[in-house]
């Protein structure tokens, strides 16, 4: 054998790349962090929701299910009403995002022009800018007295006082739709891109109009993307805090604002934890039912 490098290393065993002992070290730090700072904290939070509340400290010794009982069986159903409002707000935001997002996703997916990259950047731009900044932009536009819209309308003499655009559900919904719309558009675009344009052409060749071919061919085939996008937006909405606080002020109370208020202002940690779990559980149930319903629709599209 001519090559010296070969003769030097004769009989070195071929390292099996699948042997775990060395490669396992790659995930050890991350696993440690995830177990210590994700798994344990969540378990701890479950425990916390069963703690006895206290007025002097964040919680008292002992355990109780009283926190949950208070949420579920409050006399005026105060907490359940807020929960329902939260879920309704989530459903409404999701529906609006779907209605606005589908045309944009279709346009993005089918656009071949040079500006496509720029349009992508448009869709992504809200994602890349902090939620507080984006809310602040809406405050400037929607504010009740000196907001851009109200001031302009007043200067034009179109309104006497002002339109109530902010510190109510309208403002919160506008903010939520704006902030979570990209989460609807991106999965939808992916789903539509994976649909062969020849299918639409086939529908057109069979006599369907452009609109019909979209409604009858593209829409059903993009159901997996719709499912992903709607769940994403719904979950993000019902757990959003900044937007309701900034655009809703004290007039809009939904579960996340209530939870944070219990934790940071009232210092009622066990009750706040229980509220958070009720929200998480309710959200999970809604998503689960939604999955069951939509999966029936998607039988033909299963990949």
């Amino acid at each position, binding site marked *: *054998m*001519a*090559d010296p*490098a*070969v003769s030097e*290393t*004769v*009989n*070195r*065993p*071929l*390292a*099996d790349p699948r042997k775990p002992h060395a490669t396992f070290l790659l995930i050890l730090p991350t696993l440690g962090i995830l177990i210590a700072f994700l798994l344990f904290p969540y378990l701890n939070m479950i425990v916390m929701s069963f703690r006895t509340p206290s007025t002097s400290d964040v919680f008292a010794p002992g355990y109780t299910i009283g926190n949950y009982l208070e949420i579920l069986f409050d006399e005026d159903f105060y907490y359940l009403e807020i929960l329902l409002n939260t879920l309704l707000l989530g459903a409404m935001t999701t529906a609006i995002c779907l209605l606005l997002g589908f045309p944009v996703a279709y346009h993005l997916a089918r656009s071949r022009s040079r500006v496509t990259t720029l349009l992508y950047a448009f869709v992504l731009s809200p994602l890349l800018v902090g939620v507080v900044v984006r809310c602040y932009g809406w405050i400037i536009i929607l504010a009740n007295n000196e907001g851009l819209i109200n001031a302009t309308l007043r200067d034009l003499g179109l309104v006497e006082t002002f339109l109530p655009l902010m510190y109510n559900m309208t403002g919160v919904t506008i903010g939520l739709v704006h902030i979570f719309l990209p989460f609807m558009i991106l999965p939808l675009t992916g789903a539509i891109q994976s649909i062969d344009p020849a299918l639409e052409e086939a529908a057109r060749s069979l006599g369907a109009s452009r609109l019909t071919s979209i409604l009858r061919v593209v829409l059903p085939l993009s159901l997996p993307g719709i499912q992903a996008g709607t769940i994403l937006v719904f979950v993000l909405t019902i757990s959003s805090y900044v937007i309701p606080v900034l655009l809703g002020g004290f007039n809009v109370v939904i579960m996340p604002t209530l939870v944070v208020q219990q934790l940071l202002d009232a210092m009622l940690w066990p009750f706040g934890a229980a509220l958070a779990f009720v929200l998480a559980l309710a959200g999970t149930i809604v998503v689960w039912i939604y999955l069951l319903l939509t999966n029936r629709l998607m039988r033909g599209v299963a990949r």
Partner: protein
Amino acid sequence: MTRLAIEGLTKKFGDVVAVQTLDLAIDDHEFISLLGPSGCGKTTTLRCIAGFEQPSAGRITFDGTDIVDRLPEDRNIGMVFQNYALFPHMTVRENLGFGLEMRKTPAAERRSRIDRVLATVQLGGLGDRYPRQLSGGQQQRVALARAIVIEPAILLLDEPLANLDAKLREEMRFFIRTLQQEVGITTVYVTHDQGEAMVMSDRIVVMFDGAVHQIGAPTDIYDRPATRAVASFIGQSNFIAAEVRGRDGDGLYRLESGLGALTSRFSGSLEAGQKVELLLRPEAIELTGDGAGGNVNLVTAELRERYFLGNTLACRLKVADGSMLAAQAPPWLDLDVGQSIGCRFAPERTWLIPR
């Protein structure tokens, strides 16, 4: 430069046997093709030689030294991948220089060797291009150049022409063969294309389902296939079921078949009464309008279909027992569909496959 020997090579993936006790000795300077349909174990064999798969059993030796326990980088092989695997972030020269760098070749020598090899593969002016700036054929030659510039002990090629268009593929066959002869390197070539294997190889290893069916020169494989699978994989073939009646001497056997008494050549020994299949290549059938010229292996048939292919007429004939034969005729022959026709085939141009 290097003799490669494979003894009892077996490779299993879980319960699936990819290669079953393969034995193969490759001589210095020899060009060997591993030929077979996809999934026959030819690529697995090549990857065992390269060291990317660990054999379940068996030995692989380079010049008598067992290299099974060696890492791929210590085997001194040159490999050309099906998708070329050119490093996209390196120029052509950097791609070629990579292997030399690993061998700590001095920069000056590196440069001159790269220049020389680039000239050999006719890519002299493209050294500073990136792979994506090259055409498919050029990328293919860079991959080849990268494998041979390190002057490896063995050159391994894994379907290197599969991604080229038909015309380029044809040219590259001759190019690779000529190059291999000039460099004189021991070469193992994996392909499912019988044409490539025929043109380029000194010997062909035909594999099916992990097992070797035949090892031989291209003419052996084509004219004297060992199994029906080999015969039908390579070229077009007609098989006529027959029974041995006796031996005529000179390697000729008398047979009885659905088409009557036939005679065929065969080098092995067969007992009378043994069932065989007579292999009849379409081009071995001589169509005679009149039936003149002796009556050994003469059968009459009815012309059912004919297709003009330019250099030949492809014919489908119906013979006495109702089966169809594929045949070829010179394109100037004036034949009508439905006409009765005599077919004759010389016993020297047929072969027998025991059943």
